[in-house]
């Protein structure tokens, strides 16, 4: 067996070294490109997922979301619960908030965004919205007659530029009318406009929790309580810790809260990725198959001679498998080189998605999976033509 492999390797080595270089280089280049294609799109999709995940944590939910008990509208004794949770090891911030629908009107432009009512200082410890003020300032804890809105909601003078219904280009300092869903209408001065790259944040509005409670006559309650933990990734464990510390409300992880949205995006991308992967692998299998098939047909007589002088058919097939392996190995290495160049290019000029710049994520599993699938198709594409050609009887092959 080992002797057979030695002979096959010897034949393959000489064939590669002294055979047609042009065809060899072209085939290797194609395999390299296929490898890049196998890695690149999934890495972008992973990058998008990482971006959306991080945005979900930083701008929408923190790590954990506490919601009222079943059949209750509010979390009661919110201050006490907040203090209790803040004392739990691993928790770095807790932000109670209200969510409500509201109608905002400015110069005849009427929009109905979500209105978040927050304690700005608490919010800063959980989310990063405060650091994304494009103009004006973020809310302060004592603010009552001020509102902060997302830049999409503020909109543009030219409504053609708007992607959602907007206030027609309202600026910081302008006053808008806000009608709450209990019928109360109040005027608020625009204190700041947010541009966070988070679609959710940039399309909605924020007032202080105190102001909201004064409108609705509430005290020491909340619709949601966002929790930031020291580490991301151990949310399930932290949920158990919170429950162990006596939190009886519903506790969701950020993944659970955003599951449908993210899964739809990733699901759609994965369909594109799947089609791209299949097309790439088919290209690889066809190219290697054609190259090896032409090679074996061209050497049909030589294969017959080799069999005639006592070289076993399996040795000849193996020699073509070694050639296919060589093409795969060098193609993969060259593909890696291309990939590094592309990644460096993207680091300098990132692809900007609606959620922000996307950094491709190339993990070991992705490389391993792509390499293994390319290896498998290379071996199949090398084996089949060699098997077909060597099946021919010796005299027919020798006579050509």
């Amino acid at each position, binding site marked *: 067996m080992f002797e057979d492999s030695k*002979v096959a390797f010897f034949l393959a080595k000489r064939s590669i070294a002294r055979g047609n270089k042009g065809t060899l280089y072209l085939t290797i280049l194609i395999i390299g490109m296929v490898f890049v294609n196998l890695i690149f799109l999934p890495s972008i999709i992973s990058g998008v997922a990482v971006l959306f995940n991080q945005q979900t944590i930083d701008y929408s939910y923190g790590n954990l979301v506490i919601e009222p008990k079943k059949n209750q509208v509010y979390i009661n004794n919110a201050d006490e619960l907040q203090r209790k949770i803040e004392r739990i090891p691993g928790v770095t911030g807790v932000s109670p908030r209200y969510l409500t629908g509201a109608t905002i009107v400015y110069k005849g432009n009427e929009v109905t965004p979500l209105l978040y009512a927050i304690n700005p200082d608490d919010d800063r410890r959980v989310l990063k919205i405060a650091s994304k003020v494009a103009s004006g300032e973020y809310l302060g804890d004592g603010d009552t007659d001020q509102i902060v809105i997302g830049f999409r909601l503020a909109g543009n003078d030219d409504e053609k530029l708007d992607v959602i219904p907007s206030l027609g280009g309202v600026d910081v300092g302008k006053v808008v009318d806000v009608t709450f869903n209990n019928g109360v209408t109040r005027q608020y001065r625009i204190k700041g406009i947010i541009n966070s790259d988070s679609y959710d944040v940039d399309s909605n509005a924020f007032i202080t929790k105190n102001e909201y409670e004064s409108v609705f006559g509430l005290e020491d309650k909340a619709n949601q309580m966002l929790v930031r933990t020291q580490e991301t990734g151990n949310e399930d464990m932290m949920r158990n810790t919170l429950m162990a510390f006596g939190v009886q409300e519903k506790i969701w992880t950020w993944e659970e809260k955003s599951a449908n949205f993210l899964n739809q995006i990733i699901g759609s991308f994965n369909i594109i990725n799947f089609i791209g992967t299949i097309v790439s692998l088919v290209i690889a299998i066809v190219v290697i198959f054609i190259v090896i098939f032409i090679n074996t047909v061209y050497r049909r007589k030589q294969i017959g*001679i*080799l069999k005639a*002088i006592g*070289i076993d058919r399996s040795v000849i097939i193996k020699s073509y498998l070694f050639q296919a392996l060589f093409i795969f190995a060098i193609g993969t290495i060259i593909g890696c080189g291309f990939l590094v160049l592309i990644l460096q290019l993207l680091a300098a000029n990132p692809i900007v998605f609606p959620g922000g710049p996307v950094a491709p994520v190339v993990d070991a599993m992705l490389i391993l999976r792509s390499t293994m699938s390319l290896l498998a198709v290379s071996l199949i594409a090398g084996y089949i033509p060699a098997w077909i050609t060597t099946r021919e009887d*010796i005299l027919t092959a*020798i006579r050509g």
Partner: protein
Amino acid sequence: MIIGSDLRRYYGLGAVQVRALDGVSLEIQKGEFIGVMGPSGSGKSTLLHLLGLLDRPTSGSLLIDGVDVGVLDERARTVFRLRRLGYVFQDYALVPELTAQENVYLPSMARGMTPQECTLVCSDILGVVGLGDRIHHLPSQMSGGEQQRVAIARALVNRPALLLADEPCANLDTRNSKVILDLFRKLNHDLHQTIVMVSHEEWHKSYFDRIISMKDGVIETETNGNRDSDSMGNPSG
């Protein structure tokens, strides 16, 4: 050493059946240099293919070195060809990407020899065929005569019991043909190599111990060659 009994090889069926070999029986002793001659279509190449295990007879039996080769499966026949037979083709049939040395190296390597052993036997055999200084040349860099000598070296490298040559001089001019035939004669004489060679050149007869003349798939005559026994010694002894 070789005993063929009632060997037949038919191609096709019914009215279009071609009887390439139609009942050939022969015996070849160790050390003989046999010439198989006859016109085109007489069955001489078919006979050589059967002796070389490149084809199977439709019927009949063939014993080489006491082995009934008819019962061997494909893998065993391949091993038999590698270890017991050497084959020289009309058009040299060298692997174009291998040098002279590598072409000769190949069968010994397939046989499981170490690189050192391979190199040694290759150098020896290439020296015997007179190509000691051309071992690193590719076939494309060699003349037809030189290529055929490499092919002969390749056929001999595993010290086969039987060397088969299918019109080895057909593509060579007279001078190179003579070089090849002289080489065969030398191998036959010095190494006691059994050789069966197909030819249709009359002047080749002087090299053979025995001539099997074929016609229409059967042996027409068997005659002694015109070889000068004084200079050749007694190869069949």
